[in-house]
């Protein structure tokens, strides 16, 4: 009998179906953009040709360009953008605050600092790592977790007060960024051309090994995300009401913060501190798909992927052959968006 019970009423079913249709449309856009991302470069390869090359066709030269140079770059943009967006979705949910995001809460800053310290300590004189690249996201994760723990502890009893949380997040993020900058200037990694990545965020010079690390890490993290997804609806309530129906919100919040830190760290470890995707993508996702949680998570991921692939495409089109970090584009678009959200909040609820 329970198997036959309607899980959702007709109205909620309709909402849910509409949300999944929207997710399908977003997925199609993401796919087209990813193919364009692979096709675009110093030589244009049309989408049909890209498909052929990906499935084993094409000349030797084309195969090198597509498979070794461009595809990993697009792949990391998809994974990193998606990871940061899902982290933002989780943070916005459990803090009940649409301004919360990995960037605003200092998590990106912390992860970036973690990576730079890792590189500073474990690079040899020729600037190559003395240990495996697999440890890089671990270092990022450590930095990210410490940053969000600091924000949480500083906000203290008022952690549920949105404003305090955001202010401390911005402060901790700024301190991390300053420390990162100092380390990059005085530390042993000053010669690396990648160094700017951890300040602004960029996805060039990526290889498949790095993509693999992110993909595996992301797969593990997403299992965690879907495991907590069921507990996200009660987290929409105030703390007392959530406890009343059996969700210990303070404990759950810490769990979700850890998960969001891990997701952010994975992204930052290889794509750098790309800001504002974790703010804009989940917000846009909620505008498009509404309140249902699972479609919201998937839509956030896809929109985050679209944003980073798109930002990378834009810097490639506008500034080629100079490599400008994709993070500059997300910052240019994200900052006014953030201000718009702040101002809109200010006018509606004081």
């Amino acid at each position: 009998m329970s198997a036959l019970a309607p899980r959702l009423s007709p109205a909620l079913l309709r909402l849910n179906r509409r949300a999944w249709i929207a997710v399908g449309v977003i997925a199609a856009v993401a796919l087209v953009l990813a193919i364009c991302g692979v096709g675009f470069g110093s030589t244009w390869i049309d989408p049909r040709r890209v498909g052929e090359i990906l499935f084993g066709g094409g000349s030797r030269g084309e195969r090198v360009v597509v498979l070794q140079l461009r595809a990993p770059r697009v792949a990391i943009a998809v994974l990193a953008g998606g990871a940061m967006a899902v982290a933002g979705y989780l943070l916005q949910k459990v803090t009940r605050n649409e301004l919360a995001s990995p960037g605003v809460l200092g998590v990106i800053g912390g992860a970036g600092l973690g990576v730079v310290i890792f590189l500073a300590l474990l690079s040899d004189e020729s600037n190559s790592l003395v240990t495996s690249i697999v440890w890089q996201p671990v270092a990022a994760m450590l930095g990210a977790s410490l940053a969000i723990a600091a924000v949480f502890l500083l906000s203290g009893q008022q952690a549920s007060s949105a404003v305090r949380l955001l202010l401390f997040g911005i402060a901790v993020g700024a301190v991390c960024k300053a420390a990162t900058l100092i380390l990059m200037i005085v530390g042993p990694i000053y010669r690396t051309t990648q160094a700017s990545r951890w300040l602004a965020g960029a996805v060039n010079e990526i290889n498949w090994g790095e993509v693999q690390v992110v993909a595996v890490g992301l797969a593990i993290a997403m299992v965690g995300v879907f495991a907590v997804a069921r507990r996200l609806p009660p987290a929409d309530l105030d703390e007392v009401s959530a406890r009343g129906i059996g969700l210990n919100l303070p404990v759950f919040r810490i769990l979700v913060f850890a998960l969001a830190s891990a997701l952010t760290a994975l992204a930052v470890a290889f794509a750098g501190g790309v800001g504002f995707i974790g703010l804009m993508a989940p917000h846009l996702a909620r505008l498009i798909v509404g309140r249902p949680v699972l479609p919201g998570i998937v839509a956030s991921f896809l929109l985050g992927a679209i944003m980073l692939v798109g930002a990378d495409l834009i810097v490639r089109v506008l500034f080629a052959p100079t490599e400008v970090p994709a993070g500059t584009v997300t910052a240019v678009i994200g900052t006014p968006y953030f201000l718009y959200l702040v101002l809109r909040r200010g006018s509606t609820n004081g």
Partner: protein
Amino acid sequence: MDKAISVASLTVAYGAATALDNVDLAIPSGKITVLAGPNGCGKSTLLRSIRRLHQPKSGDIRLGDVPISSLREKELARHIGLLAQNPSAPDDMSVEELVRLGRYPHQTMLQPWSAADAEAIQAAMFGTGVSHLADRSLGSLSGGQLQRVWIAMVLAQETDVICLDEPVNHLDMAHQIDCLDLVTRLNREHGRTVVLVLHDLNLAARYADRLVFMKSGGMVAEGEPDALMNEALIEEVFGISCRVIVDPVHERPLCIPIRNSTPRFRGETSS
């Protein structure tokens, strides 16, 4: 008398300030118990302690014979429901979505949804008269409607005990009566044990089967409203000289305040 909840030597402190000092109380099963007292007397703290929202400094709270400290979060939520003093949910959440959340403690990873859930939700919305609002967003409701929806959520939880913390605070008089009549009906028709915090003494006397008077972190008296509503006791607890008459309509004791009998401005603590 069958006890739903028993509280023994309960002491709760916020930092250095003692909110409850050595309280003993039995909540009778199937009755409406109202906790009443002046601001800062600890009535809300007691209610929230019963629902394990405060870690007691010492003492023991039992649900039947089971110490509540031994129950897991969801287990406790299947036995005791709570309507918070200032509950909040997103404006764009629908009424049905909120009521569905009441089923959260009954759902597990393996059994995320059952026919019992669907039935409980329908029954809760019907019982509180909000079925026709199911698809509306919370932001579009009036204060009275919203309070009914929250009660529906607690009702859908299907707990034996329902705690309500000042449920009529923000409502106008018509909706206050409406809300408390609804709570009474849930008690009489569904046999739920109800624990209410009310600061309006006359509403407390009208709706309580058992009345508990509290003052500065301790229980002063406990019993039926007819026994407790006497002028001397009310003066002692609330600090007002008053006259108690019998409400000619409901034949319940009614307190008519005359004047404040204690000097004020002594720095009240809020509850």
